[in-house]
């Protein structure tokens, strides 16, 4: 197996609460991997650990055989990870275009001197960045909104803008936290096409999602978490028939 991202024995404790317990996971280049599970299963915690928000209690995360846990958030982003947020976190006082261009700042070669004196080098770089940002906006179908405030966008478009911003960081691995949440059927269908297209253009995608139809249709492989434990991993077909998974989901419905 030629795995790109390998998570081994990942455990996260908050005081007495074990949010994740001994989770193992492998993601290969060019895959779409889904992480599913009931609320509170530890899915977002997993994302938070991978992107450096939390330092895990135990376990390692390796990218191309190099350990990445312990690095700071921005260092991990610079290695090629980028994420979206479950509760949309766009920069509200900046235009849509600036939100995307902001994602490129971490790759900027211009020094503070270049920025202060507006040197030709900086202007060249900015021109390229703007071009690229417009291209990304076009792929995500947001070009018409480029000078608007992100708060004025419909909900579904805001989620797409988050993906656009993540792409702008020159990421190779996108972590999408509930990208279809709050979307109507049409928007979800559009998103499905977009995500598949992203995979085809070379992105590796890990996503958390509650919409089972979406997950089953788009993901190559699934990891199922319940109460912080990995209860199943496999293709959508395998997961669908796994008794543990059925149990976890049925159990959840009983609670409700």
């Amino acid at each position, binding site marked *: 197996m030629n795995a790109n991202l390998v998570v081994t024995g990942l455990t996260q404790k908050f005081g007495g609460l074990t949010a994740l317990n001994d989770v193992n996971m492998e993601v290969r280049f060019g895959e779409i991997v889904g992480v599913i599970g009931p609320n509170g299963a530890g899915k*977002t915690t997993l*994302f*938070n650990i991978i992107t450096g*928000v*939390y330092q895990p209690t135990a376990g390692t995360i390796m990218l191309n055989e190099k350990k990445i846990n312990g690095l700071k958030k921005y260092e991990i982003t610079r290695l090629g990870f980028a994420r979206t947020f*479950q509760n949309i976190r766009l920069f509200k006082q900046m235009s849509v275009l600036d939100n995307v261009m902001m994602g490129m700042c971490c790759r900027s070669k211009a020094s503070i001197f270049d920025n202060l004196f507006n040197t030709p080098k900086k202007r060249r770089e900015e021109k390229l960045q703007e071009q690229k940002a417009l291209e990304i906006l076009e792929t995500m179908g947001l070009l018409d909104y480029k000078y608007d405030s992100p708060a004025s966008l419909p909900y579904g478009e805001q989620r797409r803008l988050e993906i656009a911003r993540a792409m702008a960081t020159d990421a190779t691995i996108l972590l999408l936290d509930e990208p279809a949440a709050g979307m109507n059927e049409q928007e979800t269908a559009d998103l499905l096409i977009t995500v598949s297209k992203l995979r085809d253009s070379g992105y590796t995608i890990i996503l958390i999602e509650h919409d089972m139809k979406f997950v089953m249709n788009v993901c190559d492989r699934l990891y199922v978490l319940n109460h912080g434990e990995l209860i199943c991993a496999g293709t959508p077909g395998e997961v669908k028939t796994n008794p543990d998974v059925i149990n976890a989901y049925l159990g959840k419905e009983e609670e409700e």
Partner: protein
Amino acid sequence: MFLQQIVNGLTIGSTYALVAIGYSLVFGVLRLINFANGAEYMLGAYFIYVLMMRFGASAPLAVPLAVITLGAVGYVVDFVGLRRLRKKNAPRMSALISTLGVGTFIENAIQIWVGTETKAFPNFLNFGKITIGKTIISGTQIFIFITCILLMLAVSFVVYKTKIGKSMLAVSQDQMCAKLMGIDVSLVITLTFVAAAMLACISGVLVGSYYQNIDTNMSFIVGMKTFAAAVLGGVGSLPGAVLGGLIVGLAESIGASYISAGYRDAIAFAILIIVLLVKPSGIFGKNNVDKM
């Protein structure tokens, strides 16, 4: 000499602790530094001054009146400065600026009303003194220290044992959740402001009576020192505020006599900066990781 400094330091430190508790209470429920806290402290002292020196009121009348009035002022600070911002979910800096504005307004209103020169404050806590060796402990000092300790115990009792206190803890942990559980969040916040203002007022009165003079600088200086105390103990922690207040008081008193009196007011800031360098969360503070 050294013992004397400790006595003085504990006395002034206990009054700092009262104000620092106010910071911590407000920070607990709102994650906000109330810049008007120092102004409330000053207003309490000046209110007593006006009542007693200009209107000839007696201390037993003036003090409760001042405390109640300051409670009302605490309410007004929240109502005028912050309520609207909370509803709009405004950025935290807006709230910070707003409390700073209210504080500035109160300070300058006092300056215009009473005047900027140092005022003699009535010493209504004169209970004689005890001499142990070379150390002199005045009745005022004992009274201040005991009053502060009793008030701190009272605040702890209210926060940890009563229903309203538990509501405060709930709001400080998760405002949204507290609201869903049927807690009147707005009321809790208002009460917190009222309590903080009352504590600041009592502290201002005690200090005024201790030094027997008050001036218009007291708001800024004490506001800063007590904030340093709150940070030292861990902002949001009640025992932290008490300990921080006492440490700042002691450090200042000892530092002023052994280093230089001119730098007396700089000591608290030096402590603040050292704490931020070494352990920004303070002695009892927890490290907050924000949720994604």
